[in-house]
């Protein structure tokens, strides 16, 4: 019997199964269990959440494998982990450890300012960030099996994620309405692979799921992103930087499932305590904007 590992269908399909769900950043087994118990569809194992990476400064790298292993042993839901942009070896190490998904992430300090990882070469699937359709199509071209908005990680400010989601959706609509004669020029202007755009035009949607990430701080933020067309939500610093992580995590999961049930979201938002404090984007110096990392 022919058995094929790591096919596009298997890698993209894994992300399809996460749809409508919330993926939570965790830094240890205890947080991972809280996330699983709250109904997270996956956890992202890392050494520090983005808000703390921002505060600590310096070079942010792949997490200590001990932490990733600890999280993998603690939960039965899928475990993701971050590798630096272009860091082929960090990615291979995570793959060898058996993590279920790798985030080639701008939250970490890039290892390569020119090339992203050639993700087609891997059995493990990758998720990558994007700010517009050009960036989305480039990552798909390199073999990313899942996308997410870049947003502005660790700020608790949803504005950048909204911008990126709206931009991608609007450019997809534009592409669909276009004559095929116009696609090559559109591809040139976006810096996007032509074939990927043609495929998106033909199917009327991206070939992979696109989650929201980078600034989700409340249940209403999660529901907003779903309403703007996100397939699901990543919550980084939002949960474990809030006053009551357990309650908060559950509320975000429910708001993501029932993103059009405003009465419910109102109820969920009551008495959650303080969300993370958050940062106004204009106060961030350009060199501190993580979304500018990668291209």
């Amino acid at each position: 019997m022919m058995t094929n590992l790591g096919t596009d269908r298997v890698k993209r399909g894994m992300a399809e199964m996460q749809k409508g769900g919330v993926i939570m950043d965790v830094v240890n087994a205890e947080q991972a269990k809280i996330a699983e118990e709250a109904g997270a569809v996956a956890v992202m194992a890392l050494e520090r959440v983005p808000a703390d990476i921002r505060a600590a400064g310096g070079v942010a790298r792949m997490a200590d494998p001990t932490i990733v292993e600890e999280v993998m042993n603690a939960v039965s839901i899928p475990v993701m982990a971050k590798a630096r942009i272009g860091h082929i070896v960090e990615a291979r190490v995570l793959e060898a450890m058996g993590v279920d998904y790798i985030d080639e992430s701008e939250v970490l300090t890039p290892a390569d300012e020119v090339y992203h990882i050639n993700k087609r070469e891997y059995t493990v699937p990758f998720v990558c960030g994007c700010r517009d359709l050009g960036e989305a199509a480039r990552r798909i071209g390199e073999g990313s099996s899942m996308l997410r908005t870049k947003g502005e990680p660790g700020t608790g400010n949803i504005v950048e994620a909204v911008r990126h989601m709206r931009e991608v959706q609007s450019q997809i609509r534009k592409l669909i309405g276009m004559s095929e004669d116009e696609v090559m020029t559109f591809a040139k202007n976006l810096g996007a692979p032509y074939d990927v755009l043609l495929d998106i035009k033909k199917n009327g949607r991206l070939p992979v799921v696109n989650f929201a990430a980078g600034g989700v701080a409340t249940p209403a933020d999660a529901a907003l992103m779903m309403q703007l067309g996100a397939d699901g939500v990543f919550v980084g610093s939002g949960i474990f930087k809030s006053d009551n992580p357990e309650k908060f995590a559950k509320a975000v999961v429910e708001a993501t499932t029932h993103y059009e049930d405003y009465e419910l979201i109102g109820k969920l938002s009551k008495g959650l305590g303080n969300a993370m404090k958050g940062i106004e984007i204009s106060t961030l110096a350009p060199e501190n904007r993580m979304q500018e990392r990668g291209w």
Partner: protein
Amino acid sequence: MTKTKIGILGLQGAVREHLQSVIASGAEGVVIKQKEQLDEIDGLILPGGESTTMRRLIDKYDFFDALVAFGKKGKPIFGTCAGLILLAKNIVGSDSAHLQLMDIKVERNAFGRQIASFEADLNVKDVGEGFNAVFIRAPYVVEASDDVDVLATYNGKIVAARQNHYLCSAFHPELTDDHRMASYFVKMVEESKSALATQ
């Protein structure tokens, strides 16, 4: 007779793909987010996704008893991957199970983590040959009672089965354009609909 109506439990997971294959198989499809909607449908699909997440949401929205009652009424249910886990009477390594409607014992993530996920061509009894089966962190059936009809195996492991009006697969038929499995379920639902109508 009105068009057969099949619901897809829409709490989390690959809902849209099932909806498309149901429609491609000639039935009407509806996404179920509230338990009251179960009264309007003739059959139900429990999609793939994360079984622990779905169970949390089933409990949260008081779906549990309504889903069990739906099955006990004789209405067909098809569970794929996480849906198969929800249907099973027993789960390896766990004291509790979920809906417990099918007499099967299942093992979660039985083929390993994501890097072990695979595609293979299977022969599925009564459904067809050369079926492209997509396994993603898939479970399999470890034990099945005598009246469970095994429809497909992979390396000796049971990966599709039917027991009366319950159908399950460890793989994801909704992820390909081959709608034979969905058509098989639609036929099951049509048969049950006429049988229930004459009662």
